[in-house]
């Protein structure tokens, strides 16, 4: 009997939390598509979507509806199981990363301490990396199962790009780990709430991490897997209807999540800048405010991603590889060396 003594409230609490966070991610991604078009428009001196509802706010709903209503085409020559699996993997891996991110501090509600984090596992950041690396399977499987040479080429590009840019990303992260001395994401945030944001210690590391995050999300200037002029449409060329929607959607979720991860790692996570949260004591709304602070930081990153997209053209493939292997890897190694020396010297 003792074995079955499950804390039912914990299960309910986590279930609600998972539901909330997934919903937040999906809604944010939905409105990121709207935001993308708005940002593109205002940067190009246009107005952007403004017909569907106030400020065009219903545009994502209309887009979603359109994607659902489209005919669903599965090519005859494709591997059908993998063809369907591809967008699913892309979506699931995009959403799974949100599980370990601390979305806010602990709040007291109904006599319970509820941490606004689904799972504070002790390998937090490694989990994020593992899942992000799995994101490439969505592209690879989708591109391969389509049985289209353009899709396959795009998938190969995507895979090699992701592998190349994970390396400097990991190296940049190692120097960050040297500073913090932990891989648990909660510890990262606690240290930054009580001290200085990590970006102060690791400006170069953050810079490298940011560039690699762009590449990991397949965002311009590193959107080679979907280069229209070279590969028609890239790895999702054969996809239609909501399966295509899933791929496009997963990109926006990835963008948002990587913005949140960067805020967590380098910009204090849910720390509200210039405010001492502990001074307010135990009130529930401070948790909500912390959550909003993290959202704001993540969305600022999303805006920067979009801003970059509408500023610079795509890199050529050899330039991309050059930048990854010959510039970012040495820079990251240098950063790691300097950090190691400083950490040793200070101890």
């Amino acid at each position, binding site marked *: 009997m003792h074995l079955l003594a499950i804390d039912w409230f914990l299960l309910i609490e986590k279930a609600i939390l998972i539901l909330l966070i997934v919903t937040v991610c999906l809604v944010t991604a939905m409105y990121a598509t709207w935001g993308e078009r708005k940002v593109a428009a205002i*940067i190009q*001196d*246009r*107005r952007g979507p403004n017909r569907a509802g106030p400020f065009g706010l219903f545009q994502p709903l209309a887009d979603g509806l359109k994607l659902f209503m489209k005919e669903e085409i599965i090519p005859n020559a494709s591997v059908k199981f993998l063809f369907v699996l591809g967008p699913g993997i892309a979506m699931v891996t995009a959403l799974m990363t949100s599980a370990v991110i601390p979305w806010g501090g602990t709040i007291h509600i109904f006599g319970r301490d509820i941490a606004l984090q689904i799972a504070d596992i002790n390998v937090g950041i490694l989990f994020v990396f593992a899942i992000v690396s799995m994101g490439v399977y969505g592209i690879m499987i989708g591109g391969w199962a389509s049985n289209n040479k353009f899709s396959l080429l795009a998938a190969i590009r995507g895979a090699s790009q992701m592998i190349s840019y994970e390396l400097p990303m990991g190296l940049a992260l190692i120097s960050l780990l040297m500073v913090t001395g932990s891989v648990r994401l909660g510890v990262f945030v606690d240290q930054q709430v009580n001290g200085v944001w990590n970006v102060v210690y690791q400006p170069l590391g953050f810079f490298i991490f940011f560039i690699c995050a762009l590449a990991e999300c397949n965002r311009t200037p590193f959107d080679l897997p979907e280069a229209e002029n070279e590969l028609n449409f890239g790895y999702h060329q054969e996809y239609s209807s909501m399966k295509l929607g899933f791929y496009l959607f997963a990109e926006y979720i990835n963008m948002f999540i990587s913005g949140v991860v960067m805020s967590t790692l380098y910009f204090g996570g849910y720390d509200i800048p210039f405010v001492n949260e502990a001074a307010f004591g135990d009130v529930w709304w401070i948790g909500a405010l912390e959550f909003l602070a993290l959202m704001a930081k993540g969305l600022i990153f999303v805006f920067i991603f979009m801003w970059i997209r509408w500023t*610079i053209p795509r890199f050529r493939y050899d330039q991309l590889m050059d930048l990854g292997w010959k510039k970012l890897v040495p820079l990251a190694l240098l950063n790691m060396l300097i950090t190691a020396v400083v950490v040793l010297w200070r101890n």
Partner: protein
Amino acid sequence: MQTLTNRSKPVNRKPMTWLEKLYVWNIAKGMAVTFIHIFKRKATISYPEQKRSFSKVFRGLHILNRDEEGRERCTACGLCAVACPAEAITMEAAERQKGEEHLYREEKYAAKYEINMLRCIFCGLCEEACPKDAIYLSQTFAPANYGRAGFIYGKENLLIPNPKEDPEGFNKARGERVMS
């Protein structure tokens, strides 16, 4: 080489330095440019709510003019059809009967007057050819239509509202163009 103007700039073919190859500085410059554009005035005119005003000499849809007593001016002489380089105008003449003097200004009038707006090039030669000041190009343009038949405008589309019965409509249809 001797240059024709002193405005040409020599192409810089120096190999990029290591810092330049990181593209950071140049990308930052580009991003500053796009950031400034966020605050610039938008070029768009939100069409159905906001309309761009036409110039005073804009040549839009035709109107068949009436005189100050509300009688049609057209006598179906056919000069506009002859002048039309696109051959867009067709008409049929008819004789004015007794009792129709308040409708038509002269003894002959156009019973049928059609302009194919898909053929028309809005050059305004019909306006220049007309000896009776009967046809003018107004300041509106043809609305979209689903079929070609809808672009053949008959008298019911072209005639200007009667200045006696509907002076407001008459002035609106006339627009800002100066007519006799």
